[in-house]
């Protein structure tokens, strides 16, 4: 029962693949529906499972943090599937050509999801590594899904090379850890490691931190993000920006808390420097972008910097603050991407300047996009502000006031560039021949739900309270 959500996801992936064989071209849209149902079942299974425990001789463990990550990941995948459906079914004004078979797309997407879910639950080097690769390798294919688009292929190839590089760093670091300790259990490694500090240990630390940084787009390991985000099909960009970021955070949790938990306190200064450079560089480069997907890539990089504040200290509230901000970030970012995908579906455009006059051509979508962007920028009382507030307070309580000040400056800068988009939507007049841009029901309902999430998560902090309550003692068991 503990593994049921993961198993359901894998099963859905296989079912979709098989059923596709029996469907005609006209009924092939059903695969999307089946995927959604499978994800709903997985979500239900995860929600109803309140037990924590271990399976497979302790190699697979569900605890409070793993449970929350499962929920977040399924949520991200669910919305991504909805966002993909119009594009894949050709239900758009501007057809996106070169998209392969739908069933394979969903299947591959589900496999990455399964990999991500296994990653946070794994407690063994081998399962950890394999689930990491299961989460990453199918992603290459998704990024390059548009076969006739040179940029998509370029994005896929760059992603392969850079992600494989980071994977090889990670696996080499793991080999060193195993050589030092003779253990494959992550907790056991974390326990024994303090007796083996030496050159090989520091080498392993450097390798794993670089690998983790690359997965979580921490500067200076972020360089793959911009090209991949821009070239990938837009729903996949959305998925990358939330699910891949979420799994990056899960990876950091595993590495920083579980393996190097004992050094995290001493490493606070290093973490703070990474946080500072990440948010500053992400923000600075985002200012000059013209392509909205690339723009969102750098925005995502800078958001990664804010997440890192949660590792300072380290304290229990940090875990809850990071998880909560991840939830907020997923909802908000998907809110922005729903609008981007919708606009691309209807007009085929993705430059920031193309959004001019959106407030006249579709006022409701413009409003929702604006609110989501404000939430990303951290304007109260939206959820993005509340999430950031919690993270800032972690850094503040750890005594990193200069970093909070820098983060505050960065928030102001980020506001400036989010306002660039808003200015196009609200101040620039639409083209003379512009008419009202319609929206499909699917996207409208999705955006409405995400919008409600963006607003309500900030005002009603019940979810934060329950995350806080669930994970209050999680860290204490790791940091001895």
């Amino acid at each position, binding site marked *: 029962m503990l593994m049921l959500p993961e198993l359901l996801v894998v099963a859905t992936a296989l079912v979709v693949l098989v059923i596709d064989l029996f469907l005609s071209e006209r009924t092939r849209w059903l695969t999307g529906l089946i995927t959604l149902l499978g994800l709903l079942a997985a979500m239900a299974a995860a929600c109803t499972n309140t037990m924590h425990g271990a399976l497979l001789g302790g190699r697979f463990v569900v605890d409070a943090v793993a449970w929350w990550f499962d929920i977040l990941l399924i949520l991200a995948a669910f919305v991504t599937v909805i966002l993909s459906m119009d594009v894949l079914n050709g239900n758009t004004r501007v057809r996106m050509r070169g998209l392969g078979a739908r069933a394979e797309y969903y299947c591959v997407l589900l496999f990455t999801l399964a990999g991500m879910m296994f990653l946070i639950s794994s407690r063994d080097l081998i399962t950890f590594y394999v689930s990491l690769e299961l989460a990453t*390798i199918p992603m*290459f294919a998704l990024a390059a899904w548009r076969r006739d688009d*040179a*940029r998509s292929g370029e994005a*896929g190839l760059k992603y*392969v*090379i850079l992600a494989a590089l980071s994977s090889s760093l990670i696996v080499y670091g793991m080999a060193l850890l195993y050589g030092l300790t003779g253990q494959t259990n992550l907790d056991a490694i974390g326990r024994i490691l303090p007796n083996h500090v030496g050159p090989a240990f520091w080498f392993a630390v450097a390798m794993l931190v670089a690998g983790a940084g690359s997965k979580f787009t921490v500067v200076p390991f972020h360089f793959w993000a911009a090209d991949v985000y821009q070239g990938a099909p837009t729903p996949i960009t959305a998925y990358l920006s939330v699910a891949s970021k979420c799994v990056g955070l899960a990876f950091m949790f595993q590495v920083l808390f579980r393996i190097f938990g004992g050094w995290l306190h001493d490493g606070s200064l290093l973490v703070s420097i990474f946080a500072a450079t990440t948010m500053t560089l992400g923000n600075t480069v985002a200012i000059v972008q013209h392509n909205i997907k690339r723009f969102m890539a750098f925005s995502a990089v800078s958001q990664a910097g804010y997440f890192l504040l949660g590792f300072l200290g380290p304290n229990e509230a940090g875990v809850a603050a990071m998880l909560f901000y991840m939830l907020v970030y997923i909802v908000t970012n998907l809110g922005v991407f729903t609008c981007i995908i919708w606009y691309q579906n209807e007009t085929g455009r993705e430059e920031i300047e193309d959004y001019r006059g959106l407030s006249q051509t579709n006022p409701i979508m413009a409003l929702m996009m604006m609110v989501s962007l404000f939430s990303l920028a951290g304007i109260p009382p939206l959820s993005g502000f509340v999430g950031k507030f919690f993270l800032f307070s972690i850094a503040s309580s750890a005594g990193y006031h200069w970093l909070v000040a820098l983060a505050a400056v960065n928030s102001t800068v980020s506001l400036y560039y989010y306002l660039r988009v808003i200015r196009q939507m609200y101040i620039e007049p639409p083209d003379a021949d512009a008419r009202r841009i319609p929206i499909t029901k699917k996207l409208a309902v999705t955006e409405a739900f995400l919008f409600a999430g963006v607003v309500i998560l900030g005002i009603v902090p019940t979810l934060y309270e329950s995350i806080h309550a669930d994970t209050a003692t999680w860290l204490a068991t790791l940091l001895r």
Partner: protein
Amino acid sequence: MASVPMEHALVLAAVLFALGLAGLLVRRNIIFMLMCLEIMFNAAGLAFVAAGARWAQADGQVMFMMILTVAAAEVAVGLALLLGFYHHFKTLDADAAEGMRG
């Protein structure tokens, strides 16, 4: 049978890894870049085998198997994308991939 000391194996692994990394950074031909990645994975695998030998456990070798298969999958996807790349750009030079800037 005189066993190879672990240090020697680790040094070899480190040299291989460094070679792979250097190759990845220097080479501009994408096929060679993929090969260099393969060398890095195998270096890591070698380190695992050496470590497994030190602790007299099978885990190192199990991990090596896993690394082999995963790396194979990685390269398989990489080669497939490479074909697409060649189809578009008629070259395997990584510098041709500069459609996105900013």
